[in-house]
């Protein structure tokens, strides 16, 4: 069931992206992306349903796609800022790219462990993928700011940076409470990925301060755009598993 949903939302986001390739993004691509987001939310629901009351493992990357599309449709649907269509196309491409990563390098075979049966573990994961989605949107706005030279893009970068930062910080704080209740430590060094969390928090703390104070406009736009690469390399690649190509079709039905 999960695999059908995973492959479906990947294909749907791929189609939405290809339909968005012409400069005028028609309603078809947007509607397809909405459908893809619904299917991807269904995929997340199934993963949670199976794991409940424990937390599903390695969802931090695959669960980003639908929230990225929802945020993308919110921020790129209204107004007349140049580059909105391009922004929407980039959102669909990123969602498609995340689906390809989850299909070819899946890490969905890990069972959850008993200590993840905690509201703080659930909140830590949920805030994590919401934060990643918001940071990717701020990165797309950063890229658009560089390409279109529109100064108004700055306010959108700042908004999504702040949203992402709040989610990311909440993810870290709930993770710390979970760590304290489960292990008695604020930081557990059993998983290397803990430093990736810290690295991203420091990166966006620097960026947010640059934006909130209006300093160094050129540097901050370049940094905002490079956030796209940062999130993919530092926070998404570590969540990938071994190569599975061609995609596993057995047990689909």
């Amino acid at each position, binding site marked *: 069931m999960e695999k059908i949903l995973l492959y479906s939302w990947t294909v749907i986001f791929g189609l939405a992206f290809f339909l968005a390739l012409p400069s005028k993004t028609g309603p078809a691509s947007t509607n397809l992306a909405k459908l893809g987001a619904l299917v991807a939310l269904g995929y997340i629901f199934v993963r949670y349903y199976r794991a409940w009351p424990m937390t599903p493992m390695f969802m931090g990357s695959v669960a980003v796609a639908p929230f990225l599309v929802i945020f993308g449709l919110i921020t790129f649907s209204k107004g007349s800022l140049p580059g909105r269509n391009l922004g929407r196309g980039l959102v669909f491409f990123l969602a498609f790219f995340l689906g390809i990563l989850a299909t070819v390098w899946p890490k969905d075979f890990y069972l959850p462990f*008993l200590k993840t049966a905690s509201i703080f573990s659930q909140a830590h994961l949920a805030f994590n993928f919401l934060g990643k989605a918001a940071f990717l949107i701020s990165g797309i706005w950063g890229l658009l700011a560089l390409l279109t030279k529109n100064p108004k893009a700055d306010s959108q970068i700042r908004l999504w940076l702040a949203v992402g930062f709040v989610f990311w910080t909440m993810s870290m704080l709930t993770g710390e409470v979970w760590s304290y*209740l489960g292990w008695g430590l604020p*930081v557990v060094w059993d998983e290397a990925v803990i430093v990736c969390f810290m*690295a991203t928090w420091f990166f966006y703390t620097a960026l947010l301060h640059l934006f909130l104070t209006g300093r160094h406009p050129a540097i901050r736009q370049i940094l905002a755009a490079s956030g796209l690469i940062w999130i993919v390399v530092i926070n998404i690649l570590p969540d990938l598993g071994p190569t599975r190509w061609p995609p596993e079709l057995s047990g689909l039905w």
Partner: protein
Amino acid sequence: MATVPGGILKLLKKIWTVSGHLDLAVAICLLLAVDAALAYPLIQKHLTTFIPLGEVGLITWVTTYGRYNLGHTFWFYGLMLGLILLGINTFVCTTNRVWAILGPKRRRKGWLYKLGPHIMHYAVLVMVSGYLGSYTLAQALPGRALIPDGPPLKLPGELGFLSVSVENPVVYQGQRLPFFDNWFLDPGFQLTFTGPDGRTVKKHVAYNKPARYRGYNFYLSDFYPKNSVSQGMAGYKTVKLSIRRDPAAIVYMVGILLFACGIIVYLADLYRKSRLTSAKEKPHEIS
């Protein structure tokens, strides 16, 4: 009373200004980001060097594991240094801004709303101090393994004796993950503490639900058997506990709460500003 020479005062003022500069904060944060990102492959490859950090404490770890494995622990020293510099910078910068809001004759209407970001900054300082305190002051007793309904264990000092019994375990009943069928979600362990005066205290312990007794926290680390049907190897039953006393835990918990308060004040300020803006725009709409 001796007075401070003007030159020294100027120098101190200059140091204060430079150490609280915002560009310095941005530079330190970016360096810390790179440092932490570099650490990922190093921890991944040498995980066993870093796991004891929580057990032996910061000072022991730095002088043993850290010192003799500098090839893959150097980044940790960079992280410590960066955090100290960022702490100083945050304190100076935030204090300057708070003084500008709360200083004599400077309070304006809505001053409380302006404190949101500064509360968050101070909260980060409180949290980092708490972590530092936790890694330096926490006392971890060696891991304990007990047998349910078995002989009591002598605890150090005034803690007395500890025994474990099982009451009302909760079993996974979903059949959504066949692997977990009949597994204990909560094995229902009751810890019975018998003090030196003979008084007994009962506490429940489970994953993520530590038992607290006389300043010590008792965490469930592991237990066997995991399954209510199989009795494990020859019916062998055991409960593994980790016992910690962490006087600094309250500090970082207060920091977390303070940060949450800061976010609430900041969001309230945003809401207030949006209402003020819409109130200003209304007459234009009517005309």
